[in-house]
Every structure is written in C-alpha cells, then in structure tokens.
C-alpha cells in the first residue's frame, strides 16, 4: 500500500474523496447546463447553518453532541433546495434571486448559531475549508450511501434529466413530469454538497461541482462525453490535490480547487490551440 494510506484517517479521506470526486461533477454537469452554477454556493451556505445548529444544540443535548453534524447539515441543505425551487416559482422573472436569498439566509443563520455556541472552534474551521484529517469512518459510509442513491437516480433518470436540461417544453411534450424530477434532483444536489464538505469545505464545494464541468464543456463532443470528462477531471483533481496537500502540508480544499483551476486552464488553452472549427453552412 502507498505510504500515504497507512493511517486509517487518510484511508477514510481518500475513499470519501474518490466518491465525492465522482458525485459532484456528475450532478454539476446538469447544474451548469441549466445555468444554475451558483446554486451549489447557496446550498453549501445553508449546509453550514445546519452544521452550526448542530454544534449549538450539542452544548445542550447529548444526542447532538455525539451526532455527526453532517446529518443536520444535510437536512438544512435539502430543505434549502426545496425552498429554492419554490422561490423560483414566486420570482418567475427573476429566477436567480432565489440564490442570494437562500445564501444570505444561510450565512445569517450560521453566524447567529456560531455566536450563540461561543464562536469558532477547529471543528467549524474544518467544515469551512475542508480537512482530510477530520474525515470519520461514519462519514465514509454516509457518503457511500449517497453515492449509491445518486448514481441510481442519474442512471435511471438520465433521459429525463437530459431533456429537462436541454429544453423543458420538449420534456413536457414527451410526457415527462418535470416537477418531481427537478425537486428530487435538487435534493440529490443538496446531499452531495453536504457530503463533499469534509473534503473541500463549504466555501469551496461549488468549485468541485462546476470547475470540472467548465473544463469539460470546452472540449467535449456531446453530453455523455461531457459527463465522463467532468468525472475524470474531478477525480484527477481530488486525488492529486489530496496527495499534494498531505506531502506539502497544505489545506486539502484549496489544493484540490487549485488543481481544478490548472485543469481548466489546460482545457481552455487546448481549445485555443486546436481552434474551434465551425462546420460549413448549408
């Protein structure tokens, strides 16, 4: 085994990282093509409120003191996701307003909970920026369960998600009931964001969802290829980021995100060099 993996906490982090490196870009592809890249940011901040709430409740209740804060984080995140979909209906002509509303509500709640819980501690710091030494065995199993649910959902709903992302009208004409699929999709996104937090941190989780996609859509031919390339870039960034962060003693979240930025620039320059060919006119 690699020396890097001789400690159990590193094994946990590595397994979680690999799962998250697959999950975040898979959902990210749909989010980016639906022009909702900022949703990941809004949901990550509402997740923080859930985690802060758990830290606060842990002061008073032994149940929350022992519970993994990721669960309450997930509950907040899924609630926020459903709320975003509702707000998008209220503000039909300003759909993007839902995002700053949820985001600021998330930060507001977090700040209140954190101050009531007597401020920052290392735990919270780890959630904000990600820390591979903080990944527990129970996190690995939680993320594994999310992995199974999300992959089954995307596999069986691929057609529907694809049509709804491309044009909703066509979807409705083919008899696809768009509402519950979109709500389920948002709930999955919320779960993946909560799951990715330990590795990349709340402030950087949206990068793991959107940067691999931003890179892949520069060079992909077709939607399936965009998904595969996004996953490849996500995994490369997570794995190399975790190695670098361990050996160079850097923050894991930041290292992973910088690896993504490097990949993104490589893809943009590749496209520049090969040039974008327009096919001849009719």
């Amino acid at each position, binding site marked *: 085994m690699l020396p890097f993996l001789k400690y159990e906490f590193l094994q946990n982090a590595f397994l979680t990282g690999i799962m998250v490196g697959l999950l975040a870009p898979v959902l990210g592809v749909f989010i980016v093509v639906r022009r909702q890249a900022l949703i990941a940011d809004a949901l990550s901040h509402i997740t923080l409120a859930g985690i802060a709430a758990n830290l606060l409740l842990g002061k008073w209740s032994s149940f929350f003191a022992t519970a993994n804060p990721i669960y309450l984080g997930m509950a907040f995140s899924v609630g926020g996701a459903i709320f975003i979909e509702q707000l998008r209906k209220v503000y039909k002509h300003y759909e993007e307003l839902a995002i700053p509303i949820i985001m600021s509500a998330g930060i507001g709640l977090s700040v209140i909970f954190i101050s009531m819980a007597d401020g920052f501690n290392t735990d919270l710091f780890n959630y904000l920026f990600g820390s591979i030494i903080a990944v527990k065995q129970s996190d690995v199993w939680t993320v594994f369960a999310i992995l199974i649910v999300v992959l089954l959902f995307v596999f069986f709903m691929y057609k*529907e998600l*694809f049509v709804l992302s*491309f044009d909703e*009208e066509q979807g409705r004409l083919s008899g*696809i009931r768009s509402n519950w699929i979109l709500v389920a999709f948002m709930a999955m996104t919320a779960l993946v964001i909560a799951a990715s937090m330990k590795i990349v941190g709340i402030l950087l989780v949206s990068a793991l969802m959107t940067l691999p996609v931003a890179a892949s859509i520069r060079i*992909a031919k077709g939607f399936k290829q965009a998904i595969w390339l996004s996953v490849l870039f996500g995994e490369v960034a997570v794995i190399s980021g975790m190695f670098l962060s361990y050996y160079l003693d850097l923050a894991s979240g930041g290292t992973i995100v910088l690896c993504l930025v490097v990949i993104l620039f490589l893809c943009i320059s590749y496209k520049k060099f090969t040039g974008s060919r327009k*096919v001849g*006119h009719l």
Partner: protein
Amino acid sequence: MKNNLNSIAIRVDDLSFHYGDKNVLQHVTMDIKKGSFLGLVGPNGSGKSTLIKCILGLQKPQQGNVYLFGEKINKFNDWEKIGYVSQKANSFNTAFPATAFEVVSMGLFGRVGLFRFLKAADKRKVWEALKSVNMEQYAHQNIGELSGGQQQRVFIARALVSDPMLLILDEPTVGVDTESSESFYKLLKELHYNNNMTLVLVTHDVGVMTDYVTDVACLNKQIHFHGNTREFETSSSENISAFYGHHVHVLHHDHDHA
C-alpha cells in the same frame, strides 16, 4: 360538423385566452384537415404562438376546447404522434454540449418511457431521421457548432423521429438566412408530400410560404381568413403586391371575412 371528425387533425372550438386582462385569443374556431399543410400567419403579438401552445397543451385556455385527432386534449395521450419545432431563439442554449445525434434521440424519450433505455432499433430510427433531413454526416457534431439552418434541420429530425402524424413548426426560419430557409421549406414540402403528414407552419413570411402550403389561416387574436392557398391568393389579389412586399397586417384590414 361532428360527422367529419375523422378527417380532422386539429379542431379548435371557441377558444379564448388572456394573460391577466390582456386578450390574446378571442373565440378562435378552426378545423385543420388531416393531410393539409397549413400556413398560420399573423403579425407580431397576434397570438400565433399562444394558439400553438394551447393546441399542444402547454398553455391552458380560459375558454374553449382543443381536439387532437378527435380526442379532447386533456384525454389525448398519443403525444408521440405530434412533432413540435419551437422558435429556435428562445428554446435552447447553443453552448449546450450535446451532439446532433443526442438531440434527435430526445424525440424518442416519450415513447421509450421511464426507467428504460434506447435500443438498437431506436438508434436506427435516429439515423433515419437525420438522413431524412440530410444531416447524418453531422451526427457527432455538437449542436452549437452547426449553422442556424443546420440546427433547425436537427430539430426537425427530432420532431420526425417518432413518426408523427402531425408536425407543428413555430417560426422555424427566424434567424436563418434566406437561402437556407428556402431549402428548408422545400424539405417541409417533401415531408408533407411523401409521408402524408399534417403540417402546421407558423410564420410571418407570407411571400415564401404560399409557394409551399396547401391552406392558409390568418390570425390576429381572431381568425380573419381560413381557406386554401388559391382562395387566399384570389381573395387578396387586389392587394397581392402590397402584402407580398410588406407585412401581413396590411392584409387583415382588407380581409375581415370572419
């Protein structure tokens, strides 16, 4: 009127639609015969797109009914019989990473159903549809890399892939150069001729359209004229030069037959 329902593809019966207090459609009644190629013309804001959306069940009118192939619209569930090509400009994101093949295959998703995947036979259908619009050599190009006319052909292929009996096109040539749109109209005429398909073409381009369609309907909140192309041309002969060269609204004031 009831006895010839079998020969009617679309029946619109006393349909009215308003957004808030703005009337968009008023008491629209029309039958579109099976096998006809109808050009639906009208100025901007005349309610053409809204009428199409009501016919497709994408909008609910406040009053009146729509029947598709003799079936009331809320009971109709043969949607794969109907192909729809919407106004290109506001219907999709040209940077979307999907190949022409992937876009066309969407047309089969309704038939394939939930939790199922495209089979080899479905993929053959996608190829056939691409071939019927002469786009098979671009199958693996991203849709955004194609020209406007080529993209429109891909969308036609998507509408055709499920072998529809009725094809509805909403201003399909907006943003497409004249040469491409003419070859596009020729393609529609061929499709109509070869497959005995009912076609409805929404357009404000009266001049070109009358060379291809069998029937014409003029809409401006109400139906002002509905008849075959010859009737349309003779009834408006005194003004033919005026409206061939200009916009359709000239015509409405002169032909208030409704």
